[in-house]
C-alpha cells in the first residue's frame, strides 16, 4: 500500500454528496469504467480511490487497509473494538446525518428512560424466565451504551435489516436503530427513550490510525489535508 488509498461510498446520496465535497476542495472525482466501476481517480492527486460500502470503509479504516475514507460515524463507532481511539475523524461533513437511538413500543407507558427500561428488563426476566430482547445491527455501540447506563437485563439479537419491525414480528421487544426524522419508528408503534440517543452521526472524512504511510502516500496525504485546511479557512 505504497500509494495513498482513499475509499468513498459506492452508491446513493452519500456518494453524490462526497463527490460534491471533493469537487469543492478542487479535487473532482473521475470514476474508472463509468458509473458501474469500483475504482476512481481524483484529479490532481496521486491516489488510489476505491468505491466501497460504508461498512467496508469503516472496517478498512479501523484495520488500516485504507488511509482515508468517507463513511458514517455510526459505523466507525460500532465497528471499532476500542471506541473512538481506533480512528481519527478529520472533518465531519455536514451530510448523512442521523441518530442512533433506543426505541421501545409506544404502549410501554411505564418506560420513558433508560432507567425505566432497566426496571422493565428486570421484571421481564422474573416473569418470563429470559431476558428482554434488543434487536440491532449496532452490537458494540448498544453494549457500550447500555453498560454506561447500568442496564444489564437484556439480550442482543443481531438484525440484518428492517430492525423497526422486530417488535411487531416478535423477534425482539426493544430496538437500537438509526433514524433521521423518527417517522419510521413512529409508524411502527415505537418511541425513542428520553435519554436514548446513543450517537448523533454524520458522514465524516476519517483517517486510519493503523495504516502505514510510505513516502508517496505521505506526500499525497499532505496535499489532500492541505486542500482541506485551506477550504476550512475560506468557508
Amino acid at each position: 500500500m505504497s500509494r495513498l488509498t482513499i475509499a468513498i461510498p459506492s452508491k446513493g446520496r452519500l456518494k453524490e454528496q462526497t463527490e460534491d465535497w471533493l469537487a469543492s476542495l478542487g479535487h473532482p472525482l473521475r470514476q474508472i469504467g463509468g458509473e458501474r466501476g469500483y475504482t476512481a481517480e481524483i484529479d490532481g492527486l496521486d491516489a488510489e480511490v476505491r468505491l466501497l460500502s460504508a461498512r467496508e470503509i469503516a472496517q478498512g479504516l479501523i484495520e488500516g487497509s485504507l488511509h482515508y475514507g468517507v463513511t458514517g460515524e455510526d459505523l466507525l463507532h460500532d465497528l471499532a473494538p476500542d471506541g473512538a481511539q481506533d480512528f481519527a475523524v478529520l472533518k465531519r461533513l455536514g451530510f448523512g446525518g442521523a441518530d442512533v437511538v433506543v426505541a421501545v413500543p409506544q404502549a410501554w407507558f411505564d418506560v420513558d428512560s433508560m432507567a425505566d427500561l432497566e426496571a422493565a428488563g428486570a421484571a421481564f426476566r422474573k416473569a418470563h424466565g429470559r431476558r428482554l430482547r434488543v434487536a440491532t445491527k449496532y452490537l458494540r455501540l448498544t453494549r457500550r451504551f447500555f453498560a454506561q447506563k447500568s442496564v444489564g437485563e437484556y439480550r442482543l439479537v443481531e438484525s440484518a435489516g428492517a430492525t423497526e419491525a422486530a417488535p411487531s414480528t416478535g423477534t425482539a421487544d426493544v430496538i437500537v436503530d438509526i433514524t433521521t426524522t423518527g417517522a419510521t419508528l413512529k409508524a411502527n408503534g415505537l418511541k425513542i427513550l428520553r435519554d436514548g440517543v446513543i450517537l448523533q452521526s454524520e458522514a465524516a472524512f476519517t483517517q486510519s490510525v493503523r495504516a502505514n504511510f510510505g513516502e508517496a502516500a505521505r506526500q499525497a496525504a499532505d496535499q489532500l489535508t492541505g486542500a482541506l485546511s485551506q477550504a476550512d479557512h475560506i468557508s
Partner: protein
Amino acid sequence: MNRDALVAVARAVFEAAGGTPIDPDYVLPADIPLELSGEAVRARLCVFTDNRGAEMVMRPDLTLPVAQREAARLGEAGASAKTYTYAARAFRLPAAPDDPFEFTQVGLERFGYGADPAADADLFALVHRAVEACGVQPKSIVTGDLAIFPAFIDALGLPGVTTDLLKRAFRQEGGVRAVLDAASRPLDTDVLAALEADDAEAALGAVLAARAIPLAGARSLAEIVDGLRARRAAIEAGGLPDAARTALLALRDVDCPLAEAPERLAALARAQGLPGAETALAAFALRVEKILALVPGARRTAAFRAGFGRRFTYYDGFVFEVLAEGLAPTQPVAAGGRYDGLIAGLSSGRVSATGIGGVVRPDRMVRVRRAGA
C-alpha cells in the same frame, strides 16, 4: 518448573482436599452465560454459530460447565454435597495483548455444603496453598463481599422498588449513580387514571385504543400495569433520601487492609444508624478472623474493597483475587468466590445448592517465576 509441572503441583494440592476429577463440556449453548450474566460478558466470550444458526460458546471458565453438570445431577439424584477438581482448558477473547485465547485453570468447586464463614476461609486457604506450592509468593490479595452492599441497602429501610433497583445497579458497569441520577418523570393523567380503575388492565387497553397505539412485543398489559405501579411508587417515594445516599457512597469507598475491614464496616453501620446490617457484618468479621488464622500472611497482603467483584456476574458472596509480582492487576494468578445462586439460576429454580470454588492459573505463574528468576 514449566507449565505442565505447575499444573501437576496445583492439581495435587486440590486433589488432596478431596473431590472427583471432572472435565465437563467444552462447548455450551451461548444462552447459558448470556442469560445468566447478560450481554456484558459477550465481549470476552468465544462465540460461534452452529449449522442451524444457534449461538454456542467455548467454555469461558470451568465453574459454569461444572455447575451445569451438577445442576443436572441434582435434578436426577436429589440433594447431596459434592466436590469436584479439574485441570482443564478454558477459552476467552483476550482483554490485553499478552492474554492467551486458551489457558488452563486448575481448581476446585464445592456444591451443597454449609455456606458459612469457615467454608469461605477454608477455600481461600486452599487456593492460597496451591499458589505457594507453585513457588509463587502473593504480592497482594484483593477481597470483596457481594452480600455486604445488599445488606446495607436492606438495612436502609427504603421502599421495595428502590431497594431492588439499587441492588441491581450495584452490579452494573455504570453503578448506582447512573440509576440514581435518572429521576423519574411524572406519568400522563389518562394513564394515571387508568391505574385507579377497578380493572386497570382494561382501562389501560382503552387508553391504548384511544391513542391508536398497538400492543407489540412480549410484554403484556398486566406487566405494563405492574411497571406503572412500580414507577408511581418510586415517584411517590421521592427518590433516595440524602442519608441513604451518603451511607451508600461511604460504603462504596471502603478500601482497607482486610484485618481492619470488620471494624471499618461496623463503624460505618453505627455512624449511619443501620442495626439491620449486624448479621451480615458479624459473619463478615468471623470470616476475616478465620482467614487470618489459616493464612497469617494475609494480614500483610490482603485488602478489602467494598466494590470489588461487583462485575463478577454470578458470584454473590465472598470473592477474592491473588496478584503476583510482574503481572497487571487484571491478570490474577488465582481467584475464587461464592456463588450460592448459580445452581438455581442454571436450572431456572428447579434445584438449588450452595456453591464455592477457586482456581489458579499456571500459565501466569510461569510468567511470574520467569520474571523473578
